[in-house]
């Protein structure tokens, strides 16, 4: 379903990392993990990804700050989806303001998460 799609996941919770790894292995996506927003930026500077899943709350650099850096300083337009355990009313708005494309909530529902990624990646790269 996500054959050859490259995904960068910025997530400091190891359990969530393991869940996402399992979900993406089953759909043949290629995934790399970062534990902080800073690590995600470093990885993105080294190689391109089709999509980034960005946790909002991480040590060293949070997801909103990392996203603003990716958009404003790096001028990088890779789609970014926020992944969050919070459900605060202002969260979705803050994500979009920072330059994210969408927001999904933990725990992840595998089919809908993969469908969302497929949709965003297809729209961002119509030839894929």
């Amino acid at each position, binding site marked *: 379903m996500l054959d050859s799609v490259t995904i960068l996941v910025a997530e400091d919770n190891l359990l969530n990392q393991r869940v996402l790894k399992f979900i993406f292995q089953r759909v043949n996506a290629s995934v790399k993990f970062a534990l902080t927003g800073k690590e995600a930026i470093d990885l993105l500077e080294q190689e391109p990804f089709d999509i980034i899943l960005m946790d909002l*709350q991480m040590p060293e650099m949070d997801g909103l700050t990392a996203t603003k850096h990716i958009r404003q300083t790096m001028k990088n337009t890779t789609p970014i989806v926020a992944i969050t355990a919070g459900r605060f009313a202002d969260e979705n708005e803050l994500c979009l303001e920072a330059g994210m494309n969408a927001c999904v909530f933990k725990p992840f529902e595998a089919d809908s998460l993969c469908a969302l990624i497929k949709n965003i990646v297809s729209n961002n790269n119509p030839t894929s």
Partner: protein
Amino acid sequence: MDTPVLDLSYLTSISGNDSKYMYEVINLFLSTVPDGLKKLEQLVKNTDDFEGIHRQAHSLKSSFSIIKVGDIFDDIAAIVILGREARGKEEIDQRLDNVLATFEAAMPVITAERDRHKARK
């Protein structure tokens, strides 16, 4: 209906009850969450660091949304909100006591479930 001591329905649903995967995730849960709870306890009992309490509870909330243990998720979610709003220290303290007691009581069940999947993997 009473809340189950341990609810692995989310893991079961995404893994198709794959014992190798279930063992791995439960083992990871057992190797990370007790330390996370100790950090939260230290922050709640010894400081007024609401931001730290919010961050630590938020991290634990993710883990308890994957593996549900009694009513811990609800208590942790409430602590996240109170920490974020920097209020309700007494309620945070009471909810944390519930979390710690529930987790301690559930440990043998969680460990047994991990070992059951280890034997099947």
